[in-house]
């Protein structure tokens, strides 16, 4: 067990965990932030996406002890206008992939507040949605400020 310090959504957490523990498992099991979902646990689907210093990152394959920077999870984005935009656009069905979608989308609009359809598709391609809400997600991002 080794100490790991994480700043998550502006709050600092200090805890002991074995080297090899993923950031996703620490967020979910130790800090109690279950908004970040694990769907594949090997970096293929994007459900576990969090931001580290604003960069979309797959927390399931990120070693908790190697995190450098501030972590933002879906819980830290609960008041982001994208949330209302996703609701308006019906960009959610089962909802399991949705937190990861919002985190990726928030990073996109932070860097590029008026993305084109092409830019949205390119930047969101790492977030798999089995229910197929993609057209609604695209609409939510296009109109996130409405």
């Amino acid at each position, binding site marked *: 067990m080794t100490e790991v310090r994480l700043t998550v959504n502006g709050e600092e957490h200090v805890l002991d965990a074995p080297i090899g523990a993923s950031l996703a498992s620490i967020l*979910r*099991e130790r800090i*109690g932030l*279950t*908004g*970040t*979902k*694990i*769907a*594949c*646990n*090997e970096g*293929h*689907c994007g*459900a576990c996406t969090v931001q580290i210093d604003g960069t979309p990152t797959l927390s399931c394959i990120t070693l908790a002890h190697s995190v450098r920077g501030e972590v933002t*999870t*879906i*819980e830290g984005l*609960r008041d982001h206008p994208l*949330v209302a935009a*996703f*609701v*308006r656009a*019906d*960009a*959610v*069905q*089962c*909802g*399991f*992939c*949705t*937190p990861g979608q*919002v985190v990726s989308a928030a990073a996109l609009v932070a860097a590029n507040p008026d993305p084109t359809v092409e830019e*949205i*598709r*390119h930047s*969101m*391609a*790492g*977030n*798999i*949605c*089995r*229910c*197929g*809400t*993609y*057209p*609604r*997600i*695209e609409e939510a991002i296009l109109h996130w400020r409405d």
Partner: protein
Amino acid sequence: MARLIRTEKEVEGRFETVWIVVEEDPLEQWPAGPRDVVGRPAARKDAAERVRGEARFTADIRLPGMLHTAVLRSPHAHARANKIDLAPALALPGVRGALGPGEVMGFEAEAGYAGAPVAAVAADTFGQAHAALAAIAVEWEQLEAVLDPEEAVERKLFAADPVHYERGDFERALAEADVVVEGTYRTSVVVHNSMETHQSVCEWVGDTLTVYTSTQYVWGVRDEVAEALAIPADKVRVVCEYMGGGFGSKNSAGEFTFAAAELARRTGRPVRCALTRREENTAAGNRNATIQKLTVGARSDGTIVALGGEYVLALGWGGWSTQTEGPLKMLYACDNVRTDRYAVKLNMPPMKAFRAPGFVEGTFGLECLIDELAVQLDIDPLELRRMNYAGSNDGTPFSSKNLMDCYELAEKHWERRHEVRARSDATWKRGVGMASQVWFGGGGPPSYAWVRVGSDGRAQVVTAMQDIGTGTRTAMAQIAAEELGLPLDRVEVSLGDTSRGPYATLSAGSSTTPSMGPAVRAAAADARRQIIEIAAQRHELEERVINVQHGLAISSDGNLAQPIEELLENVQILGKGARGPNPTGMSVLTFGVQVAEVAVDVETGEVRVERVAAVHDVGRIINTLGAQSQVEGGVIQGIGHTLSEVRLLDPETGRTLTTSLDAYRMPTIADVPEIVCEFVDKPDEHLTNLGSKGLGEPPIIPIAAAIANAIRDATGADVHELPISREEMLRALEAAQRKEPRGAPAAV
């Protein structure tokens, strides 16, 4: 007043006769067209919590002292675990319990496929449980493994009795036909891969078991678990308020639930058993592969006179034999039909219902065949479909059928083909194709609902149903709001808990809206009647002059306009409703047609779907926003099985090779075409107090054939296999070239 009746109930195309108790259902349907709430776009009631990550899925359940389970699975395609010693595993740190073959349903000593569950270990952490699997000593006796479906047919290794169907005289009609087209079509195994894997958390408190599970059927799980454990059903509480996708794979409890329940009983601690993504791809069920040998005979004027098919379903180790020949039997008017269906048992993972099981596969074969017939006859494909319109289901009238309306709405999309083809160039050939579909979706009884109206003038629908992501929660709220004359934001729905609310049907087979909806409306109507009775008594008016609208009790002369929270004071109203029977002697079916525009890179075999128009007839639409999402989702999921998804096994060992999502490739947002959705939106006047049918499955059914037909339009190439990989596309292009060397693109 309660009545006991016998009626037919259909789920996923399977029919059974049931006896049920129903309340009288005297409600008349609402006239067609958007109402105050129903028939309008409504944001999902639970969207915000899902979007924010606040919704608690089974994967998020954390109970104090909870153990984690790892499952030992057979490495062999067919083997018997003759000796299994769990003791070394139990001795490892953190391991608290274990079970072996035969101790729990679903864990067998005879493993019928690579990945079949054989034993399970529960430990403090998943890592400890997983590590303990290696310590379990197993003596495997390998048995013969059969992996080839055609070999299995020859050897008569049937999973179910072969099904033969005929009407008329197929052979004679075929002999008399002017044109005969034959083709062999193949579809591959595809896997549901819901984002939340199959999982349950079980906790005993005394002799009562609570099961948190990711499921499409809380009541079904309750009954299955109770039976498996030999305890009364009301000692089992099943909870599933949010679940991360099912698509048919989560219709029953699953061996992971039985394992968690048993390990929880043995250890005295709550136990989670969750499949990993690798296990999802290996052992959680799939749509079976098919080989379809189809024949159509027609007169030169386009009348279809004979339809025949031989279907081989490579079922795997379990599952059921789906009516893959259904579309061929039902979609067109044809007096002479003959089909034979063989479902073979193979040493590979079992089939599980997957969004319109059988009909997705069968529609691909049929609608490609019909299109090839259109080419042979030199008849427009839309015209050919219209000409052979079925006015009844083999003699049984339809409760409603508006497929002709769908064809009419599809005309303008089909008309685009000239302009689409004209945008072809040397590399990219463009074309348009269509496919129509038939499916079930009438739902059926039993389903029950309660509607509480509180003295705050707000209503709550209470029923033990599920919302698996399809938006049924919102649709039920809309129905109750409409009937109660309340704004939508004053109606909530309580669901997903068998200890809270009456029995509700499973969410599969496009059955939730047509099954639950009428029960909810009946319950709301019962509550409304009581509100009107109270208003009548309080204001000394006759009931017939009172109505409830916009949250007010109003009289027809306008003198009374009282907010119902004032009217009700300290009273809570409880309305009860039940789903009535389906119309007898009628086929309750859904219909649709999809028109796809594709571009094919004829040198590299790349296929891009550029636009899909989806036109569906599913009776009255409750939530126009949610309905559109369902159609888009079904089309996109269908594009997956058409172009890039395939489950592969190692031919030698029978083990799954595509175990991870980099290998099993589902569509991303970058793969989505423009999707245009249209609904006929005509209530089925014979079906319940709503006239609504289900929409979950229809949209996935015709898309593969529409794409294949568009490819034919663009390139002249016939693709007969799903997925349409580059390899298959290049093969088809080459075959087309050999048949008829292509010169310049067709003149427009």
